[in-house]
């Protein structure tokens, strides 16, 4: 019993400790699946009866489980054992006590016997005494107050106290009664103990059924689990064979128990992952092996979450699966992190791979660049000496040679040319590829370009071929683009065409198309209207990439053929060898004089067609690749590097267009490129009448200088072979005659003219006469590559229609552009003499320029391709610093402008008095008079119409020289506001505000550079 008590007590302690550790709030909800009564200090033993607990447990199931599952039974067995042991212990203790008691009883009985014997002896002696009962009764009264059950053990030691005298009857009587009483009490005690023992046994039996104790233990384990799991993001459950929930623990439940117990996953949730998890459980159930899996849920109930699920089958004793235990943990964050990591790792890997790739590419690129640079450098190096060789050979060709020598020389020249061409190609290509190729924008006349290209080709033509060119009416007379490159493309394509054509024709067609790839331009329709003839080109059309177009163009071409310039054709055809220079010189002059309106972009399509061998279809894709030719055969048979088309394509693309080809084997090819051009805005007025008369003149007389502006058709008929080299050199120059249309191969020589000694004198001459002649001839040199020599030689020639003479006429008419130059020289002179010198006639000008500072000369006179509009603008530079002047002047020259220069404010005012300027670039800080004051004076004049302010400032008005009137350039002082741009050195004193305050329109900071000047010009001289 003691033991039992202790046990109970211990349990109590345990439970108390547990409940105090258990968080108070855990059960507050009351709706949770595992509900515990608020623990607190209450004795948990009271609730040991599990069934009373509102935990979400199907206890029947638990019972079944413990009964049927192996786990359950083993656990049970252990608990039972434990209990049995305890019970045995209790029984042992009870038995011991029982033994004890029995011993006592025996002793007591023994004593009783003794007493009885004694008593008998006494009775024998006093046998006649017959009233013991009454005495005893009295005695009984004496002992009434004795405690009945004071102590179990003490009894024995109690002596018998009798107050009667020893050995008297009373004594013995009393003693016997006493002993009897004792015996009685002892028996009674024994009875009580037995009863108690039995009660205790009963009690034990009642109290400690194994199930109850097991439940208690389970309960305690459950509590621990609760404690452990209280905040864990886990869901624990048990599902039966049909995967219906029998138990679930979920710390963050979103459903009530009745919604879950007895249902399957699928019945509870919907959404992604639910089915998967159910299937997984089923799988585990079937396979009988525990497994883990990560399942992504996307349910309405708890959103997007990833759970790691552990499912373990539960077996019956018979080994059948009867359900699954399952445990799920929310690992969303971990998975996200993991995925992120994986992604990052992947990215890093990719990055690394890319890096290595890039490094490799860089390496390769560097190598390639180096190789290309090397190639370019080498080519460059080769070109100079080679051009020397070739030009020497050409000179040699002009000397007297016998037939064999001439043949050898011809081979030499053609080989030299080929190598040169190759080198040029390589250089071009590397230039384009390295991005160093810069496009220039200049005005040019497409008709002339076409004509020149054809002329050039015709000049070197060694086959019986007809070269023709057609430019549609709607192609503007002048457009803006990089004429050199366009020419290069055309030349390349034409020579390609010629190379692969043995009979028939090679030609160029030019017409306007709307935006690229839009097949039906207006030009086409127009053309269709007046077409009548059917061309032999029809056959080659089959494979045309854009059929509608090609048919149009073909028609157009032939339809208009008779329309324009037939006379011209005839004259041309007769004289294939005549030099081109004259006409070109004039033509270029015309370009400058020509003017336009509208600044728009026009797309011009150019077809270069031939009736040659064509290109097999399978070769088309690689056609534009570098060093690719149709076949090895082709290369052997026709030569060439395979660079030409690649260059053309790159150039075209660089200019924003595209190059395509269509071809049919044995019938010919057509190369087509479409390029955007700007159509130049207008400029002009004053020069127009002259120009028109010029043109009219040319057209009607149909002489060698026939103006190409109006003519859209050119044809070069076959001529005899072998004239290429014999027609060169001096022959060309000498054979010049006014009525011949130039077909000379002059272009060849020009590149080298400066290197060759025979031309040196001419070069010098041209440098020495830098005015009009120089302008035009240099323009020619760069544009059409004609020799400066020729213009010189023919100037004395009185044949009136030759270019040089023409120019002279123009000069006499006062219609040339170098009036401004007079002034600029004059101003320079004025620096010294302080007086504006009179304009002179051309020769005098030359003289004067010779004398004057050379750098000034160079910069003011010859420039490449100066557009007419640019030349027409009068620009004044006011700057005292000589170096700045030189630099600015050179830049302006490169920008195609000639400028007048004066050195201080006073000179600036004088210059404005003498001439109308369209733009003044004004330095601010200058000696004598600074730019600010000069500007104020000029503005004052513009406002008042008089120079009073200037006179007040000490500048007497200068009367324009009367000679200028005779030049046809009457000077009408204009009071139109001249844009004045300040040039400041960014110093504080020359702040922008000050400039504006003094009437300047804008300012550029010094040092000036191209960019700034260009912007400025574009803004103020559109």
């Amino acid at each position: 019993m003691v033991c039992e008590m202790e046990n109970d007590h211990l349990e109590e302690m345990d439970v108390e400790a547990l409940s105090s550790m258990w968080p108070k709030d855990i059960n507050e909800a009351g709706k949770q699946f595992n509900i515990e009564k608020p623990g607190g200090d209450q004795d948990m033993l009271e609730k040991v009866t599990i069934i009373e607990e509102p935990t979400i447990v199907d206890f029947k199931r638990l019972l079944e489980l413990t009964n049927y599952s192996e786990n359950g039974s083993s656990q049970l067995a252990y608990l039972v054992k434990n209990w049995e042991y305890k019970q045995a212990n209790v029984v042992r203790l009870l038995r011991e006590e029982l033994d004890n008691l029995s011993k006592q009883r025996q002793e007591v009985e023994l004593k009783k016997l003794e007493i009885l014997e004694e008593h008998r002896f006494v009775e024998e002696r006093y046998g006649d005494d017959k009233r013991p009962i009454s005495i005893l009764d009295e005695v009984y009264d004496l002992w009434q107050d004795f405690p009945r059950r004071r102590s179990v053990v003490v009894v024995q030691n109690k002596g018998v106290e009798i107050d009667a005298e020893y050995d008297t009857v009373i004594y013995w009587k009393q003693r016997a009664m006493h002993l009897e009483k004792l015996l009685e009490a002892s028996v009674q005690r024994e009875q009580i103990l037995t009863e108690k023992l039995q009660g205790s046994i009963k009690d034990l039996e009642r109290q400690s059924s194994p199930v109850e104790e097991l439940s208690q233990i389970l309960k305690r384990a459950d509590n621990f689990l609760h404690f452990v799991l209280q905040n864990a993001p886990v869901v624990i459950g048990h599902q039966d064979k049909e995967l219906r929930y029998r138990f679930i623990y979920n710390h963050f439940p979103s459903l009530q128990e009745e919604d879950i117990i007895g249902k399957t996953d699928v019945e509870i949730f919907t959404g992604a992952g639910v089915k998967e998890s159910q299937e997984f459980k089923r799988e585990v159930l079937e396979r009988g092996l525990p497994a883990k899996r990560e399942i992504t849920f996307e349910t309405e109930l708890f959103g997007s979450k990833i759970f790691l699920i552990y499912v373990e089958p539960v077996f019956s004793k018979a080994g059948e699966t009867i359900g699954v235990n399952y445990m799920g943990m929310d690992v969303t964050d971990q998975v996200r992190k993991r995925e992120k990591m994986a992604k990052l790792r992947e990215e890093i890997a990719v990055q690394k791979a890319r890096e290595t790739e890039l490094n490799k590419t860089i390496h390769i690129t560097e190598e390639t660049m180096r190789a290309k640079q090397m190639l370019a450098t080498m080519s460059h190096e080769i070109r100079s000496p080679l051009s020397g060789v070739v030009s020497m050979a050409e000179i040699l060709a002009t000397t007297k040679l016998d037939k064999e020598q001439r043949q050898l020389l011809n081979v030499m020249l053609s080989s030299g040319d080929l190598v040169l061409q190759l080198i040029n190609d390589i250089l071009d290509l590397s230039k384009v590829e390295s991005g160093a190729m810069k496009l220039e924008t200049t005005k040019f006349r497409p008709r002339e370009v076409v004509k020149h290209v054809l002329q050039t080709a015709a000049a070197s033509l060694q086959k019986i071929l007809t070269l023709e060119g057609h430019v549609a009416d709607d192609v503007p007379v002048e457009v803006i683009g990089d004429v050199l490159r366009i020419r290069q493309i055309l030349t390349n394509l034409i020579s390609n065409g010629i190379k692969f054509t043995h009979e028939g024709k090679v030609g160029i067609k030019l017409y306007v198309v709307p935006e690229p790839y839009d097949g039906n331009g207006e030009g086409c329709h127009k053309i269709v209207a007046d077409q009548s003839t059917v061309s032999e080109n029809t056959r080659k059309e089959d494979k045309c990439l854009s059929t509608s177009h090609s048919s149009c163009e073909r028609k157009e071409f032939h339809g208009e053929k008779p329309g324009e310039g037939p006379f011209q054709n005839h004259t041309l055809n007769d004289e294939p060898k005549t030099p081109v220079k004259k006409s070109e010189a004039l033509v270029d002059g015309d370009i400058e004089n020509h003017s336009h309106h509208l600044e728009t972009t026009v797309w011009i399509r150019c077809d270069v067609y031939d009736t040659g061998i064509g290109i097999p279809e399978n070769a088309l894709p690689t056609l534009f690749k570098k060093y690719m030719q149709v076949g090895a055969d082709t290369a052997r048979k026709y030569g060439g590097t395979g660079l030409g088309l690649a260059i053309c394509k790159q150039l075209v693309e660089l200019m924003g267009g595209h190059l395509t080809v269509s071809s049919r084997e044995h019938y010919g090819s057509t190369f087509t490129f479409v390029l955007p051009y700007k159509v130049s805005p207008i400029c002009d007025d004053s020069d127009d009448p002259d120009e028109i008369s010029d043109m009219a003149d040319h057209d009607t007389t149909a002489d060698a200088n026939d103006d190409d502006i109006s003519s859209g058709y050119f044809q070069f008929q076959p001529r005899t072979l072998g004239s290429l080299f014999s027609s060169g050199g001096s022959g060309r120059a000498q054979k010049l005659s006014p009525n011949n249309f130039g077909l000379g191969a002059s272009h060849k020589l020009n590149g080298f003219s400066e290197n060759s000694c025979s031309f040196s004198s001419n070069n010098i001459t041209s440098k020495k006469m830098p005015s009009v002649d120089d302008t035009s001839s240099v323009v020619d040199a760069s544009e059409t590559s004609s020799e400066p020599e020729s213009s010189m030689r023919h100037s004395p020639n009185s044949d009136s229609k030759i270019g040089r003479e023409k120019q002279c006429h123009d000069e006499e008419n006062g219609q040339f552009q170098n009036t401004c130059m007079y002034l600029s020289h004059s101003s320079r002179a004025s620096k010294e003499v302080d007086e504006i010198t009179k304009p002179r006639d051309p020769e005098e000008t030359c003289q004067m320029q010779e004398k004057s500072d050379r750098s000034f000369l160079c910069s003011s006179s010859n420039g490449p391709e100066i557009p007419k509009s640019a030349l027409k603008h009068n620009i004044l530079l006011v700057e005292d610093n000589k170096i700045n002047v030189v630099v600015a002047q050179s830049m302006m020259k490169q920008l195609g402008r000639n400028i007048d220069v004066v050195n201080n404010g006073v000179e600036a005012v004088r210059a404005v008095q003498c001439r109308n300027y369209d733009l003044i670039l004004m330095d601010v800080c200058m000696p004598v008079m600074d730019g600010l004051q000069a500007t104020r004076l000029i503005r004052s004049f513009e406002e008042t119409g008089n120079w009073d302010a200037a006179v007040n400032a000490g500048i007497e008005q200068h009367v324009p020289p009367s000679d200028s009137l005779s030049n046809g350039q009457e000077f009408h002082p204009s009071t139109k506001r001249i844009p004045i741009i300040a040039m400041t050195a960014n110093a504080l004193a020359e702040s922008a505000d000050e400039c504006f305050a003094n009437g300047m329109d804008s300012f550029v900071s010094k040092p000036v550079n191209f960019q700034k000047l260009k912007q400025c010009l574009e803004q103020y001289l559109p």
Partner: protein
Amino acid sequence: MEVVQLQTRFVEYTASLFREGYLDAQFTQLQQLQDESNPDFVVEVVSLFFEDSERLLNDLTRALNQQSVDFKKVDANVHQLKGSSSSIGAQRIKNACITFRNFCDEQNIEASLRCLQQVKQEYSLVKNKLDTLFRLEQQIVAAGGSIPVME
């Protein structure tokens, strides 16, 4: 091959001039102005600059050694020098001139003299460098090569 070596040297030398700040982008502009019609443009302009600068430096030296220094004149001269040096891209001279002008404004003779020294030194440095560059150019031309174009 000698030409190639010369050219390489030329390129490197030019690059070093830019790198060390003797020249700036304006010089590139000058180089771009040089073409067939003007083959010696850079040399011409730079020679002009040398002449001009020497004259200005002499004037300056004289002006600053006068009893009473005419700072207006000095300033005008320095302004000229500054303008022309910035025009050819000789930026170290230009920078020295800028400092110089500040002292002119202050009429500080001592500092001006120091600046003049500085400007003279920069001038002779640039002159040497450019002379070397042009010599190299001549050598290249003499050897039959062409002057590499600086990008």
